[in-house]
Every structure is written in structure tokens, then in C-alpha cells.
């Protein structure tokens, strides 16, 4: 079964004829060639495929693509500003060593963004809860938590509420 699906991808209206059994993850990578979103386990455990839909984080490996019709999707590609300028969360991850091999980073950064879109003053416990659906096999999480704390500071300094 095929259908034309329309949605907003990183701020741009897109549409494509898609098969009904596809998950959003495959469509992002194969149809739209946005390979920043990674497939890890494919079972909803590891969180590398995390994207943001209408403001909330989801695992795109378990998200039937027909459900994305009319919605707004943000992937890691959508965080980069003009001229390739990194998002403050990305800058914080680079500077604080939140990135090692990099495979978990897109998902980790989008989970951080979902948190920081709600609050710029998260407690360490809130940060840990926010990334509890994302696995990292390199950092031991300490630097990632540092990075998110630092990103919160950057965001609040950049645009005080």
C-alpha cells in the first residue's frame, strides 16, 4: 500500500510517495537522504534514532511513517544554523567532551533539546531522566550530563527569558 505523505521536515514542506510498512527512520535516511539520524537497535531501546515531532522526542525506528502526515519533524540536520553554525547544544557537546564516537550524539542532542525546550534550569536528575532513553557506550554519561548543563547555560545567556 502506497500513499503520498506530506509533512514539515526541518522547516521545509516535503512530500513523497511512501510505502505503508516504512518507519520514519528509513524514510529520513533513504528517501530524504538525511543520514544524521542513526539506526542502532531498531527496537526502541537505544535512542540513536530519536527525532522531535511537534515538540516531543520520539524513536523514529518504531514510528510508522503514515503517522507523520501533517506533522513537523526536526532531525539533527535541522539544528545547524546558517553557514553551518552549530546549535548551542551541539557546541556544548563538542566542548565538554559529550561526543566520542559520535553514534549516539544526534539522538542524545535531540533528547537534550526536547528537555531544554521546556526548561533552561534542569536539575541533574531531570537531565538524567531526559536522556534515560538514549544509550552511550563511550562516555559513561558524565560528560554528556556536563554538556547538557553547559548547553542550558549557553541558551539562557544567549536569549534571556
Amino acid at each position, binding site marked *: *500500500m502506497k500513499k503520498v505523505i506530506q509533512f514539515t521536515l526541518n522547516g521545509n514542506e516535503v512530500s513523497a510517495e511512501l510505502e505503508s*510498512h516504512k518507519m520514519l527512520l528509513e524514510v529520513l535516511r533513504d528517501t530524504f537522504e538525511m543520514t544524521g539520524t542513526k539506526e542502532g537497535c531498531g527496537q526502541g531501546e537505544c*535512542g540513536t534514532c530519536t527525532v522531535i515531532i511537534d515538540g516531543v522526542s*520520539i*524513536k523514529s525506528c518504531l*514510528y510508522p511513517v*503514515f503517522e507523520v502526515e501533517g506533522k513537523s519533524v526536526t532531525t539533527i540536520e535541522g539544528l545547524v544554523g546558517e553557514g553551518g553554525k552549530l546549535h548551542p547544544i551541539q557546541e556544548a557537546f563538542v566542548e565538554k567532551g559529550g561526543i566520542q564516537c559520535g553514534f549516539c550524539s544526534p539522538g542524545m542532542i535531540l533528547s537534550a533539546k526536547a528537555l531544554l525546550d521546556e526548561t533552561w534550569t534542569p536539575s541533574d536528575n531531570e537531565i538524567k531522566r531526559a536522556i*534515560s*532513553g538514549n544509550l552511550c557506550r563511550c562516555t559513561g554519561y558524565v560528560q554528556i550530563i556536563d554538556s547538557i548543563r553547559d548547553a542550558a547555560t549557553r541558551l539562557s545567556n544567549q536569549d534571556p527569558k
Partner: protein
Amino acid sequence: MKKFDYYQPESLNEAYRLMEENEGRARYIAGGTDIIWRIKQGVIKADALISLRRIRPLEGITRNGGLTLGSMALFRNIEKDSSIARDYPSLTQAVSILANPQVRNVATVGGNLCNGAPSADSVPPLMVLEAVLTIEGPGGRREVPIGNFFTGPGQSCMDRTEILTQIKIPKKVFNSGSAFLKKGRVSQDIAVVNAAAFLVMEGKICRKCRLAVGAVAPVPLRLTNIEEMVEGREIDPELLDRVGEMVERAVSPITDVRSTENWRRVMSGVLVKRAIQKAHKMVD
């Protein structure tokens, strides 16, 4: 991944019609966080999925004295509802450590129930809160107490065309408290054991007791015998020890990758005791 058709009806009647047209090849899908994974694993075969996400009346959370959850209410929205946290803390405790944020943003309470997992975290609180489930189908509507819903691992009393539409929880009574506890390697894991307790107290005496334990039998268990033993008594260490012993005898756990049969049995006693103590502290 195996191919399947994907339908998105906007009403219950349209959903029933699609299910009848696709008899034997279709399944309903809610948030899909479990069923999609199981289709990928080949554990479930489906040639067509009928999504309930566009049936808007199934989404709501309404307070009408009690609490009515639409079956498609997201765990995220249940977790963040401050009136649920105030009146039904055991439910909030369960859904706030269920899976992980990305799953709670998509998964629904109805989906969790219809999966029929003996370990489903939303079930023990709904059992002790005496939830009643509304099930609708082409043949009409019926109401089933949650204790009669599960018939085996992955199985419920619903037939293939029926849809769970609402979960109704009675009004909170005064001098009551409820609590949920879960044992896993980390809290978001599938439970090794989970348990919930609900108490109504009159001074030191327990007037009403409801207990449930999950992941230690083919279906989540209400512990009716033990409830009766607790009612009319003071909650003291002696009583709690007897509760623990009785729970160990009531459960029939298995050994699997997450735990051994014996550990589950011992922990189910410990968890029910602690859930009673925690619910007792929550009494207002």
C-alpha cells in the same frame, strides 16, 4: 521489514468496518511502540494494521469526580497531569518510570493494557484503583472490571473487532492512599516484579485494602485473599510479615533472562509489603 497495509480510520465505526474487511489479516495498533518491534522480530504476523490514533474521542483525560482515561491517552499526558498525581499517585509513579521519555511520548495506556504483558506497569495501579474498562465493538458496548480483562500472557477478553475505548477510575475517597513499586535492574526496564497497594484507613485500622502484583504469574494478579486478611486490622510489622509470606504462596513466577523464579517470588512479597507501607504514608 515485512510489508503491511496501514489504515487510519477517524471513527470507531470506520475502524470496525476495516477490521471486518480485513478479517484474519489485520490488527489494531495504538502507539505501536511494542507491536512494531514485535512485528520486526517476527513474533506477531500482521498483513494490515488499523491505527486508532486519528479517533480523537479516544485521546482525552477527563475528571468527572473520578477519572476517565481515553484508551489512546498518552503516558506522557498522564505523567504530567497534576490532578492525577494528587489523587492517584500510584498511577503517576507507574507511568513516570515506564520505559523511557521517547516511548512515553508515543505509547498509550490502552495499548499497554491490550498488549496483555503480565509485567505491564500501568496495570497494578489500575487494578488497585478498581478501574473499569469500556470495550466497544460492532455488537455494542460492555464494561469489564480490569481484574477480569486479562486471560493469559498477551491475551484479553476482547474479540478481534472490539476496541478498548475508556478506562474509568472511581472518585478518590478520603483517608485513602495508594502506591506503586517496581523492581528492575534499572527503573525503566521491563519489571522483574511490580506491585501496587491502595488503602482506606480509619484511625489505625485498615478499612479497605486492594493489592496487585505483576510479572509473577501469567496475568497481573489481584491478591483478594490477602486484602481480606488486612482489612479490619492495624498495619503493623507482624501483619506485614504475614502478607509477605502469603504473597510468596500466591504467585507463580517463571525464570527468564531478567530474573529467576525464586528471586521473583521473594521480591514479590517484599514489594507488596513495601507498597502497603508506602500507601499507608500517602493516606491523607
